[in-house]
């Protein structure tokens, strides 16, 4: 593992640096942030000064503080959602592949239907009915996103399932859980790890987009997508505040993608 890290290319190292920085800031937000998350401490859209390192937002809150808490909220939300989506999607995908027959038919057709909607439209419609709260947000996005995880893990598991070592375990009389845990999962892990990174990016951008549309995290909680929306008016005055949270979103996603790219390259290289 260490050896692998030492051989990693520059791009992957940059990616890891970006991700580490974001994780640290998110974890220690209350310790780092100069002010309280929602406290109004200055004028509207003040420019950067010794007091406010990168200025203030549309209500006069310290922008750096908002950025730090916004990162913490957005990243945590995206991470939890991705984790749920992944557990759900990969478990159902594996069960589908191993059980086959009507279990597979039922799950796959249900997934087909959900995927026939454009994701954002589906999410918007659910949120319009249920209203936007954090649990609704998490479960809506997790379920929508798990369809993609399902497709991939089912395909990966199918490729493994046709191999004779799985048949040998079946003929031995092993049960469903053993087949998934010991035969399928260890072999499905490398592609799924890369997929986790991609899904995280997707979910993260998705949540940011929903917040940007005003349907994600609700104020006064800070989050990067919402901050772009709140401050979007500034841009016509030549104040480029919305670019800061938007850039932060892009920055983290690029970081994760750099790592995923290296990982995909690595695992494809091992096959040849």
């Amino acid at each position, binding site marked *: 593992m260490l050896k692998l890290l030492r051989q990693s290319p520059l791009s992957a190292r940059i990616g890891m640096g970006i991700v580490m920085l974001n994780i640290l800031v998110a974890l220690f937000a209350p310790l780092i942030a100069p002010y309280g998350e929602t406290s109004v401490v200055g004028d509207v859209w003040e420019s950067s000064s010794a007091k406010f390192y990168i200025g203030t937002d549309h209500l006069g809150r310290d922008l750096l503080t908002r950025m730090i808490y916004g990162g913490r909220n957005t990243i945590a939300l995206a991470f939890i959602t991705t984790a749920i989506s992944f557990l759900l999607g990969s478990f159902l995908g594996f069960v589908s592949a191993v059980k086959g027959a009507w279990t597979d038919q039922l799950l796959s057709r249900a997934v087909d239907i959900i995927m026939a909607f454009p994701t954002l439209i589906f999410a918007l419609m659910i949120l319009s009915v249920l209203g936007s709260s954090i649990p609704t947000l998490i479960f809506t996005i997790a379920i929508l996103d798990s369809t993609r995880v399902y497709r991939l893990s089912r395909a990966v598991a199918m490729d493994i399932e046709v*191999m*004779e*070592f799985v*048949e*040998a375990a*079946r*003929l*031995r*009389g*092993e049960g469903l859980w053993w087949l998934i845990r*010991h*035969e399928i999962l*260890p*072999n499905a892990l490398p592609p799924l790890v890369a997929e986790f990174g991609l899904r995280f990016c997707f979910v993260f951008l998705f949540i940011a987009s929903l917040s940007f549309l005003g349907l994600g995290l609700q104020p006064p909680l800070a989050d990067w997508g919402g901050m772009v929306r709140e401050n979007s008016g500034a841009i016509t005055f030549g104040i480029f505040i919305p670019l800061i949270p938007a850039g932060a979103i892009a920055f983290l996603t690029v970081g994760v993608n750099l790592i995923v790219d290296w990982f995909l390259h690595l695992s494809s290289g091992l096959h*040849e």
Partner: protein
Amino acid sequence: MNNLLEIKNLYLEAFYEEQWQPIVHNISLDLKRGEVLGLIGESGAGKSTIGLAAMGYARQGCRIASGSINLDGKELFGASQEDLRVVRGSKISYVAQSAAASFNPAHRVIKQYSEAPVHHGLMNHAEAEKEAVEIYRRLFLPNPEKIGYRYPHELSGGQLQRAMVAMAMSCHPEIIVFDEPTTALDVTTQIEVLAAVKEITEKMNKAALYITHDLAVVAQVAHRIMVLRNGRLVEINETRELIKNPKEKYTRELLNVRSLRENKTIHEKMDVILDIKDVAATYTGYDNVVEDIDLTVRKGRTVALVGESGSGKSTVAKIITGLLPAINGSIKFLGKELPRKLKDRKKDDLRKMQMIYQMPDTALNPRQTVRQVIGRPLEFYFGIRGKKAEDRIRELLVDIELDPDHYIGRLTTELSGGEKQRICIARALAAEPELIICDEVTSALDQLVAEGILDLLQDLQNKTDMAYLFITHDLATVKAIADKIVIMLQGKIVEQGEKKEILSPPHHEYTDKLLASVPEMDPDWLDNLLEKRASTFI
């Protein structure tokens, strides 16, 4: 100089583990007009790479490092891409192993034939197509006027392979490189392609490099044979001389591959272990893939289930193991009726019937160690764990002739094909079975390795009196180890009986064709066979 092709001190390299490493060392060969040189060796011998290098071509990740490749007075090593392009296809052409993958699915077969001659400016489309029909006819393709106008996916494997041999002729090249052209085919189809190759090399007097792993096949077409191993020359000699007086030990081993084993003494009637009556099965629900299957396997005996691809022999294995439930008939195992579905069977019945597979690479979980692979059936069936399991695993490793200290902790991916297959055998042995179903267990292995596996299976049977059901398409294997032979064709059993009965005439018509199609080491075998067929059928 009258050599058409002269390769001198050729070195080839491949890129792996982040650096260029040699794979072919110092190979020299020459080829005269009208001569066929056979290149033979096991996997990793570098024979395909040399064949392609003769065209100045190296696959992605390979390169020609040094040496000289002189084709009819023209040096190909270091030649420009454009110079190479002009030579390829027109002076020297290539027949690949898999015709199905090598034909472009988007174009009709005859358009792909005429592409090269038109592109090289040798003739126009109409002329090329006229010639194509003529060559299709000479290569015994059915309906030669029309078959070319089909798409590749509309032709059978054997037809496509012959169409590719025809395509290699399209520019009237001086040399053709045949790269395992019959390996992917059934024995009865192999004859058709071999006949086509013979037609071209002998009647049309073309020089050729014929690459294969099968000495008996190459003996039919080659004037001289070059034996390769691990990218190095072992020996080279006239075909008849090489077969009669091999100089090297390795060549002798390759020659001995097909020699018959001593028949073990047939014991008195042993107990019947497996008794199948009137079994049929279907994948679709209305079309039976196999029907009327009756067979019995006795303790300590080996029954070979023989058939070509699509004969339904592997389906029979699936029915017996319960993966594909039979739709009628009965399966009796150790005197008791077995439930048809796998999940309805008792653990102890599952234990007593084990299976070994064709591809040792996919039959072992790449994430497990040898200890885990063999230990699991011990734990699962007998509840043996810890120190006792460790001791038993070591015993089993000794039984399969692998050093326990060296192998027990290794990941399965670190093993060679033959070692993997041995681990598969140990996994089956760990369950202490009464019957082992062996599904093409040697066909993915190099011949010498396969030989070792067959010997091991034979020894184990002598020690434990296990029964084997041996599923295979390879009659040489059958002759070597079977006690009883069952021959299948299109989902039905056409003939079965003791080995001696089946192998000596009179045969069923299909059995006869099958037996006659197995190449023999005798260089005159193919000529005699074609002569005989011509006289009986025309």
